[in-house]
């Protein structure tokens, strides 16, 4: 059975997210009362989701190629060499012999080896005496707080989960939701820590500092305050390593959730 013009328009509006409240209820009624309408809506949904799935699969494949094109080295554990990397077989030394040079390596190999050695020595010296940069330390120690850190409900409203977007990694949305959630009179202070982290994740460090500072000032002696202080120290690491060092020292000395990590950062700075 063909749909009426009005029904077709309702479906179009549904996909364009243009339905008014009245139209939404009309759509719901039609979904429950008309088989033809329901079938058409489902078919269109299925076409779009099927195309979406194909597009996603294509993208994943293309990005996977980019990602796996070159292996990286993670500390001492050397990742597998890329299959495209040139390999010189050890027993094949013919390509190392040049002209009338009797035995052993030609001069330019020796010079190259000396340069490489010098570079390696400088690198070792540099890492021994200068340590990792504050940016490296930040990247090594920063990670968003696990959203399951509290077993308490975040607000008294059991139905609402203000951390849903945060848990999904949608930090832009998390900021929007959490800004409203912290205004509720029954919101627990930890929510503001999550808001601060969402702000960091979306590149708004200055706003995050304000939030963390406020949380820390209000809760200097509990876990929430410790989380806030830790993230404050991490942001300072990027902005002002000197003051960050003092803060890490304080966190290490006072003991708490992050005392071990703070001691490590302090010693590396």
């Amino acid at each position, binding site marked *: 059975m063909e749909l009426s013009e009005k029904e077709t328009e309702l479906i*179009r509006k549904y*996909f*364009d997210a243009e339905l008014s409240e009245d139209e939404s209820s009309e759509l719901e009624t039609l979904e429950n009362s008309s088989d033809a309408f329901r079938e058409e809506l489902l*078919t*269109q949904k*299925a*076409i*779009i989701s*099927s*195309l*979406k*799935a*194909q*597009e*996603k699969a294509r*993208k*994943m494949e*293309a*990005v*996977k190629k*980019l*990602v*796996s094109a070159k*292996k*990286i080295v*993670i*500390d001492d554990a050397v*990742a*597998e060499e890329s299959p495209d990397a040139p390999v010189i077989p050890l027993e094949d030394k013919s390509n190392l012999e040049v002209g009338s040079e009797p035995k052993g390596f030609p001069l330019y190999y020796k010079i190259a080896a000396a340069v490489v050695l010098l570079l390696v020595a400088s690198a070792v010296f540099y890492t021994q005496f200068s340590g990792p940069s504050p940016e490296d330390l930040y*990247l*090594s120690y*920063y*990670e*968003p707080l*696990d959203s399951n850190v509290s077993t308490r409900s975040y607000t008294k409203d059991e139905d609402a989960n203000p951390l849903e977007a945060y*848990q*999904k*990694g*949608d*930090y*832009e*949305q998390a900021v929007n939701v959490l800004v409203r959630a912290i205004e509720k009179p029954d919101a627990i202070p930890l929510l503001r820590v999550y808001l601060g982290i969402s702000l*960091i*994740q*979306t*590149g*708004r*460090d200055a706003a995050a500092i304000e939030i963390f500072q406020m949380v820390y000032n209000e809760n200097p002696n509990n876990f929430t305050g410790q989380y806030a202080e830790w993230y404050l120290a991490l942001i300072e690491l990027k902005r002002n390593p000197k003051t960050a060092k003092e803060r890490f020292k304080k966190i290490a000395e006072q003991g708490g959730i992050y005392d071990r990590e703070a001691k490590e950062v302090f010693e590396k700075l």
Partner: protein
Amino acid sequence: MSLIDRLRKGDVESLALLVEECKEVCLKHLVKKTTCNYEEAEDIFTEAVVVFGEKVVAGKVENVINVKAYMTGVCYNLWLNVYKQKQKEESREPDVERFFYEYMDHQPVDKISNLRERLYDISSRAIESLSKNCKEIIRYFYLEERSMTDVAALMGFANEKVAKVSKYKCFKRLREQVALLEQRTY
């Protein structure tokens, strides 16, 4: 032009730049801070790049100052989801539901997957039969979830209204093609 702007404009090389910029930091973070091995970390990072690209294109992410930190966070959360899922699966007792899915997996002709494959096949053939412009409009609006303003700009239309009308006509054609192919095939 920033990386975000390039991603939004559909610049294909921007994804490669994103990978180059963030791969090392993200993989190191995943391998060191989670239980991931290198290959798993690569898979998670791949998904994070796709997710990030999609969000930028759909206008859900507009301003990220520190892309590396953002991507590290996305990767960590994706890993967390995988980890929780694994834990759930490991702790699940054998039950009726599990046996049912195992049974379904071993069926040579599974009705559900058959339907899914049929739809995959038909919708991809239907979209291929459309004009280049229609394919692009459908991709921008339905698959990449771009705004009508974006679609109009990318397609070089005078305004959103023109984009909207074109989009409607193209989707109608797609729907007709699907119906036609369904009739012909079955």
